[in-house]
């Protein structure tokens, strides 16, 4: 079974500054995906960024980037130029690489509540 651990229950950052959210995971799989999801008060889970484990290059999406360390099973999210709209719960998540059975279940961490301060 896979586990995802987020050790920072809450974090805050000044607007326009940079913040890094931590995530570690445990798995015996070699092929998998890692995700960061954002859940604002609207409750909808929104995909922020994804990383395929077979890719060595870290994923980036505009102000969001990850530091993927496969050997250490670490997957942190860096948010640059933080904006008020970034205030939300952030969940790190793991999914085995899909085989013939389609998309596998996603295993989520417990989340980090991020507050961006004006």
């Amino acid at each position: 079974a896979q586990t995802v651990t987020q050790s920072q229950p809450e974090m805050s950052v000044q607007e326009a500054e940079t913040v890094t959210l931590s995530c570690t995971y445990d798995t015996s799989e070699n092929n998998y995906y890692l995700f960061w999801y954002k859940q604002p008060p609207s409750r909808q889970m929104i995909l922020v960024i994804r990383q395929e484990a077979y890719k060595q290059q870290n994923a980036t999406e505009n102000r969001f980037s990850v530091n993927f360390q496969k050997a250490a099973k670490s997957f942190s999210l860096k948010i640059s130029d933080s904006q008020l709209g970034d205030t939300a719960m952030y969940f790190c998540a793991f999914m085995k690489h899909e085989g013939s059975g389609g998309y596998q279940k996603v295993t989520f961490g417990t989340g980090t509540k991020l507050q961006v301060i004006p």
Partner: protein
Amino acid sequence: DAGVTQSPTHLIKTRGQQVTLRCSPKSGHDTVSWYQQALGQGPQFIFQYYEEEERQRGNFPDRFSGHQFPNYSSELNVNALLLGDSALYLCASSSDRRTPNNYGYTFGSGTRLTVV
């Protein structure tokens, strides 16, 4: 292009009752997964439906059951409600027909269930 639609948004039930939650997947998606998110926790996988059959199941009792209809919409049923079933229930849709622009899960905004 409509996203994932869930209904109702909120409901309150009494312990021992039964409840049905509904989900309409994103246009073009054929797979529906259900997750339970307790307060202050990450979502937990309940089960996944594809081609009107349960394809995967998480560690949830048989009180949790589901159904998928020919139009790909889905229902989550919970019998004999317990206080501990109070949670946000999220529906996520996806497609087995993989394309670069049709990847991964799309989540709905959930149904907040309170059991009293």
